[in-house]
């Protein structure tokens, strides 16, 4: 069960894109250690932008965010420290195509954490074992299926031993028959107590795994509730509209 110690603390986050679009309009969110928060919402509602601010892939103009007690500021050392502790899994996997699976996993621990390659590779093999693709370690990403690639991407994040994992629509680019294997891996991670913030449209996953579901619309949080409440008895008109569209 999640504890009360906050891992992510976002207060009044405002973001404007350079073209003037007001993408985030004062968003507050607090995620506790071991908690799984699923963020849903129509496309363009700012949910991806929001989780990308957590590891400074997106800048924000007003408000404050702190991750694991470190305040996100323009100080580059803070940003690097937060990125080391925050894994991110992308919709398009973003594996490095010129490196083998094993090299994809070991690159950051060797280069950033300056750990010994042999030691990192042993850990990487254990992680690949855990996501069920140890036999593909010497292959290149282009030789794997989408589901396998996304599992490699998750293992790559885990190899940095992050305290938080961010998922940006991890199953949206997958063929339907591959969604299951990725969700299965995420389910096990949640069960192991990983703190996770997941942007997804997977109802089943949200219902089953999330401690809290957050609905965003037009750059704001419309509703925040435990999944059973959210799916059966939404409080807000926008949530009802959204659920009616996707169910």
């Amino acid at each position, binding site marked *: 069960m999640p504890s009360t110690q906050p891992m992510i603390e976002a207060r009044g986050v405002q973001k404007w894109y350079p073209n003037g679009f007001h993408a985030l309009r004062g968003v507050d969110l607090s995620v506790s250690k071991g908690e799984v928060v699923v963020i849903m919402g129509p496309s363009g509602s700012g949910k991806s932008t929001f989780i990308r601010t957590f590891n400074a892939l997106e800048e924000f103009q007003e408000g404050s965010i702190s991750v694991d007690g470190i305040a996100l500021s323009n100080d580059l050392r803070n940003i690097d420290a937060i990125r080391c502790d925050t894994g991110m899994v992308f919709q398009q996997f973003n594996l490095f195509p010129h490196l083998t699976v094993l090299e994809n996993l070991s690159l950051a621990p060797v280069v950033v954490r300056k750990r010994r390659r042999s030691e990192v590779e042993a850990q990487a093999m254990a992680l690949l074992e855990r996501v069920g693709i140890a036999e593909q370690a010497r292959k290149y990403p*282009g030789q794997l299926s989408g589901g396998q690639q996304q599992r490699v991407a998750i293992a790559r994040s885990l190899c940095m031993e992050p305290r938080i994992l961010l998922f940006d629509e991890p199953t949206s680019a997958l063929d339907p028959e591959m969604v299951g*294997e990725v969700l299965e891996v995420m389910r096990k991670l949640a069960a192991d107590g990983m703190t996770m913030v997941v942007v997804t449209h997977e109802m089943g996953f949200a219902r089953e795994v999330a401690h809290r579901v957050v609905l965003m619309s037009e750059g704001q949080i419309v509703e925040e509730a435990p999944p059973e409440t959210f799916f059966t008895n939404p409080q807000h008109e926008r949530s009802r509209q959204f659920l009616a569209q996707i169910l």
Partner: protein
Amino acid sequence: MTSIQPGPESGSTPPLRPARPAPKSVQPSWAGALRQELFASRTDGLVSVLLIMVILAAAVGLLRWALGQAQWAVIQANTTLFAIGRYPIQQQWRLWLLVVLVAALSGVSWGLLRAFPRADRSGEIWPFNDRLAVALLGFLAAWLPAALALGLPLQLRWWVITALLVATRWLAGHWGRSWPPRLVKLVPMSWPLLYLFGMVLIAGGLGLPRVPPSEWGGLLLTLLMASFAILLSFPIGVVVALGRRSSLPLLRWASVLYIEFIRGAPLITLLFLGQNILGYMLPGGWAPDRVWRAAWVLTFFCGAYLAEAVRAGLSAVPPGQLEAARSLGLSMPQALQRVVLPQALRIALPGAVGQFISLLQDTTLLSLIGLLDLLGTARTVMANPEFLGKNAEVYLTLAVLFWCCCAALGLGSRALERRLDPTHSPA
């Protein structure tokens, strides 16, 4: 550690037809294939016959001229001039030493490439192409020195050098795997060292008497200028390409200004301009004479075009690659070095090599500012009353020499491209 491997698919599946091997295609005979390619229909046949006649006519004419009328004495008498210009005779052993070292290191590198194939390659130690290349080398070593009417001692030297190349190739190919890994790692690093050492051998220094650049010439000067410009323009191109995409305005503007200035002027103008103003622009010792000034102009010229090739490569790498690298905690330089540049440079490679090939050919412009590169040497030879009217022989030789150099660059780059290709298709 818990296993979170997804379970096997549930549900029963109906029995499927088993896979079977593809039907064997009938291998057409050599003549049959030719007939299919060239004479598939009446029109195809007509076009083929016409083309073959034109090609035959041209080839026969050329051969009759080359073997009958042409007087190759002009080449035979000036072999040394074409090769190294007026390099002093007492110092020529330095160039021979350099050729020997290059041959040995080439042989070792070539052999090691075959001894350590990539995991997804066949791993043959003597693939067909290599046997063909060795046969060609053997033929050239036997025929060329004789055809050039070199003295027997000189012919002997070329045989020994060719034998050295093939022997080191053989040794490294067969025994490279059992060499200590440190030694193997030393080989690629010894190329830049050999280049620097070669510079010392050619120019003098470290106790060797100096040979001023005005005495370099012919193929030596051409290759030296081209390789200097290629090697130094590469880092310039990468830095300027990154600068052009930088978020710092000053850096971006400076890069754009540099690229547009260079690309907006013909090389020959820049070469003349460089002779006059480079002395004021670069620190004292960098461009002391005409040769070095020309070398720097070629370098900066090539750098600007290369920057555009690299920029194309950089834009072809999806932005998600940089995001993924940064989100793993890599700093900007680390992400560029480990993730973005390896992919961008591989994409930029064909364009860059095209650039290098035209640079090699552009070195002929050096003759217009009075340097004795291959073309400059050729012009002095043709101006010699003894060889008046022998232009065709000289130009054909130059064309073949340039063609060989460019073909080598092209072959090398294609081999490199294949080696760097991780059989990937980015998701």
